[in-house]
């Protein structure tokens, strides 16, 4: 049974790094959209893997290899269940969101003809732009962009106008990493399907915050990174509908993804191995499933609620600062706030508050098109996790006030 109260002290104790002192000050980590911190259970599972289980998987007939294979395949089943995928064949482990997107984009090389169209949103991370640009270059397909408005929301009516029978793929993030905007992906997907287009949703910033149901969404591809959902670095998730994963060719060649190899001809393995060439990040994948268990034990509804409270409080407090401008004020957003103060360069504020132990991100957040839209070079971005506290937000505000004073 889940307990109903949210015990912040006990939760913070789950994360060893949250006790760290930085420059003599208590670390205040508000850069969770870049990477989340790692609970002890996840770290322990890595230690346990290398101390008791380490072996190459799938290929071995010995005990360790079988145990490691089982743990690896159990992780796949956990992600399948978590995303409500129909089959574990639909879950591919990659090295990150970026790898997942490249794998899918590469898969469309032979499915696109010159003049076909693909649709991206103005809110994307570079990882969901560049692979598709590379694809356009190779195929002659044309990229169309769903525009955004001042609030940092996509303009749905413009999206509808872009769609046509020429549209073959639509790729949009579920949540914007730079602004926190939650996009209406269910509607985006169903509209695209009316024209027979496939939809890839970049869920890197959504998976840490709420429950995803790929069947309900009817999404064709859904991708994310373990390091953004309290798991280790070097692991990505790719959900793909079985029919799509069967349709697109393998991305990488190597061990595991083959059935038979001769110099004349190679036949590829079935799903999911077709897309998992070489030795995967075995320890990382197993630990990612432990991270998933961890957040599910807390409960994603509780996480969502907690983060909404933090967002409300931080927004209110920040808005009290003179000359602040928050970018992206959709009513539907995650616990991310992107802002600038007057004409002060975000880097100046970031550097100064860093001396107070406050970790925020400054810059373009790998989303230059959004910066171009607002005609700025970057923002200060705070991104909160359920383990952050009201006190931490107060520290942030105090430090910003100090920085502001020093800089004017």
């Amino acid at each position: 049974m889940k307990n109903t109260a949210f015990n912040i002290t006990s939760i913070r104790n789950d994360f060893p790094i949250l006790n760290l002192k930085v420059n003599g000050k208590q670390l205040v980590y508000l850069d969770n959209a870049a990477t989340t911190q790692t609970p002890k259970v996840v770290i322990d599972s890595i230690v346990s893997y290398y101390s008791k289980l380490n072996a190459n998987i799938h290929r071995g007939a010995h005990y360790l290899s079988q145990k490691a294979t089982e743990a690896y395949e159990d992780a796949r089943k956990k992600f399948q269940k978590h995303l409500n995928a129909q089959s574990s064949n639909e879950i591919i482990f990659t090295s990150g969101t970026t790898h997942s997107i490249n794998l899918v984009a590469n898969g469309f090389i032979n499915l696109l003809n010159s003049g076909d169209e693909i649709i991206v949103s103005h809110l994307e991370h570079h990882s969901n732009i560049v692979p598709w640009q590379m694809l356009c270059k190779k195929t002659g397909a044309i990229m169309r962009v769903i525009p955004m408005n001042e609030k940092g929301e996509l303009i749905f009516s413009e999206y509808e106008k872009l769609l046509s029978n020429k549209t073959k793929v639509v790729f949009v993030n579920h949540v914007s990493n730079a602004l926190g905007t939650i996009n209406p992906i269910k509607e985006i997907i169903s509209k695209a399907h009316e024209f027979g287009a496939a939809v890839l949703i970049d869920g890197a910033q959504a998976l840490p915050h709420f429950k995803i149901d790929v069947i309900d969404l009817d999404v064709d591809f859904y991708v994310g990174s373990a390091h953004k959902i309290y798991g280790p670095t070097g692991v990505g998730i790719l959900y793909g509908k079985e029919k799509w994963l069967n349709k697109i060719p393998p991305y990488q060649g190597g061990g595991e993804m083959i059935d038979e190899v001769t110099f004349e001809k190679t036949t590829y393995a079935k799903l999911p191995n077709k897309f998992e060439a070489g030795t995967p990040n075995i320890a990382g994948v197993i630990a990612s499933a432990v991270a998933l268990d961890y957040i599910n034990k807390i409960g994603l509804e509780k996480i969502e609620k907690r983060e909404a409270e933090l967002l409300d409080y931080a927004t209110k407090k920040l808005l009290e600062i003179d000359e602040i401008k928050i970018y992206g004020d959709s009513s539907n957003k995650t616990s991310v706030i992107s802002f600038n103060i007057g004409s002060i360069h975000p880097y100046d504020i970031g550097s100064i508050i860093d001396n107070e132990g406050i970790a925020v991100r400054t810059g373009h957040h790998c989303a230059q098109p959004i910066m171009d839209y607002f005609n700025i070079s970057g923002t200060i971005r705070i991104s909160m996790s359920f383990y952050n506290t009201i006190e931490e937000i107060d520290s942030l505000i105090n430090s910003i006030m100090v920085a502001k004073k020093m800089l004017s």
Partner: protein
Amino acid sequence: MTIEQIQNEIISEFDMFNDWTEKYEYIIDLGKSLPVIKTQYKTQENIIRGCQSKVWLYAENIDNKLIFTADSDAIITKGIIAILIRAFSNQSAEEIINAKTDFVEKIGLKEHLSQTRANGLSSMIKQIKLYAVAYSTK
């Protein structure tokens, strides 16, 4: 005997073994006595994928009962498939489809007989059930 009865019989036989050596010796013996598949069915199509050793499995429908024959290039695999055939052969398609398969764990095969990718043992069981499904819809 029903599938369940046969499986229970197998489980009690395996219960008698004192250690893995006895169990393996038994499996190896079974392997030697496996009802051998006719050469014409030992084809590429009848190979079960996902096993480290080659396994051919074939089913015929005789008087509404499925008769399985098989072969493998590894003797232990042959022994395992002999156990599976004992449990599932000479039964109706419907009974095979509905049969439980957890006796495999109960006799400690899953534990001790490590398999390569996607567990060769489950591939075999899957293939047996697939045959039953195929025949039941004919």
